[in-house]
């Protein structure tokens, strides 16, 4: 049986396509960069889609706003409505939110607003912990709620906001599959564990069906265990140290690959 095919959609200004392709290939998927000038109907040939990080259209007007109106995204919405998985990372998440694909229904219900941080403004990058929450999300449902995944956040506009109570309602409905957390596993309430002031400490939001996920931190940048930041503690750090101490060759799979494994499992189910 041939591997499921994933289109890694690259708008001008996107710059995380190579590592995204690499992460998809590591979990056994066939991945191909799909540039913005290709006809939108060709997206139909793929089984899943990934919108990588970067600065599509230079973040002009507002991060993700211009790409969200692209004919490719209109086609993407049609394919998502057929149940195909769509993962948006960082700028890709901003596109999905601006396009109304997350939390879904077509209406734009959320924004990824400028970071809110004490005594600073603008772009911020740091390794953070995200905690898996109970959810029907296709990318995380193979993980136990409470599981911590360390990965880098790197954005200037990553604060999930909506009308009063909307994020809390989405959390109750299982549509916030990941929240920022402390190293001890409790929900982050303060900077820097909560790096942007996101409502409900949301690090990711999915649609009602669970096949479209917008995540602000970068799982593809946490795909190598050896690349785990030295500030990270917990089981992933212990495993990295154990391997380094024993010069264990081979498996270098890092925490970020878990989301890609979730995608691969979903595609295997529907094959």
């Amino acid at each position: 049986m041939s591997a499921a095919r994933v289109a890694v959609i690259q708008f001008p200004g996107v710059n995380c396509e190579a590592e995204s392709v690499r992460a998809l290939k590591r979990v056994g998927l066939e991945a191909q960069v799909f540039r913005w000038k290709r006809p939108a109907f060709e997206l139909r040939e793929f089984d899943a889609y990934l919108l990588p990080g970067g600065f599509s259209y230079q973040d002009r007007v507002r991060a993700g706003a211009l790409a969200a109106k692209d004919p490719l995204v209109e086609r993407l919405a049609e394919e998502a409505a057929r149940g195909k998985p769509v993962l948006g990372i960082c700028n890709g998440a901003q596109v999905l939110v601006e396009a109304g694909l997350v939390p879904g229904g077509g209406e734009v219900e959320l924004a990824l607003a400028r970071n809110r941080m004490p005594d600073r403004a603008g772009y911020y990058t740091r390794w953070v912990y995200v905690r898996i929450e109970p959810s029907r999300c296709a990318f995380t449902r193979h993980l136990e709620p409470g599981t911590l995944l360390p990965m880098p956040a790197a954005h200037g506009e990553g604060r999930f906001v909506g009308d009063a109570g909307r994020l809390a309602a989405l959390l109750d409905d299982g549509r916030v599959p990941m929240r920022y957390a402390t190293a001890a596993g409790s929900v982050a309430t303060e900077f820097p564990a909560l790096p942007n002031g996101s409502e409900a400490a949301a690090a990711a939001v999915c649609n009602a069906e669970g096949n479209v996920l917008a995540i602000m931190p970068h799982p593809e940048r946490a795909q190598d265990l050896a690349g785990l930041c030295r500030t990270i503690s917990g089981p992933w750090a212990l495993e990295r140290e154990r391997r380094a101490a024993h010069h264990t060759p081979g498996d270098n799979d890092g925490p970020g690959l878990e989301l890609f494994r979730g995608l691969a499992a979903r595609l295997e189910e529907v094959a």
Partner: protein
Amino acid sequence: MRAGAKSRGTAQTAQAGGELKADVPAAVWGLLVAGTGLAAGGEVSGFRRLRLFELRGRLPARSRLEALLHASTQFYNPHKERCVVRTAAREPAPVPVGTPVVIVTERGGERCAAAERWWLHETGDDIEVREGVAWVVELKAGADAAAVEDLVTVRDRRHGLLCNPRSQQARIATSKVPLPWIGPPAGA
């Protein structure tokens, strides 16, 4: 009021609008995307985009005010942007009268702390600096003026571009650019 800051004088307001001397990429792409992707996109012939600042507090005379704004890229870069300063509503704005202008601001994020710190350092005066993005919406002849609202506020993929109301707010001026325009009324 910060420690060491001066507080004499009465509050004044000044408005500074900075605009690239070259074509503004956000305006060019905004027009392209509006024309191809938005229901009301056919009504618009052009966008202009200005970064608008409002300064409130004890401000110096106009020449000194302009020199200070010129001196820091917190406000604009004189090598590539032009800047028009107004200190009274009757003064002309860099927009033709009758052309719709939209100010888009971040909810709860209008204040520019870095610009305020720079001003305090340079002058010793503790003022408020607010910022927004002003979009000049040039409509085609005979276009429906109601199209402006449909171009501004994002509702879905076919409606709205300039303001996501979940994190931003937009105010539309159809006759002339108000002063003050950003934040609460002066004196509030």
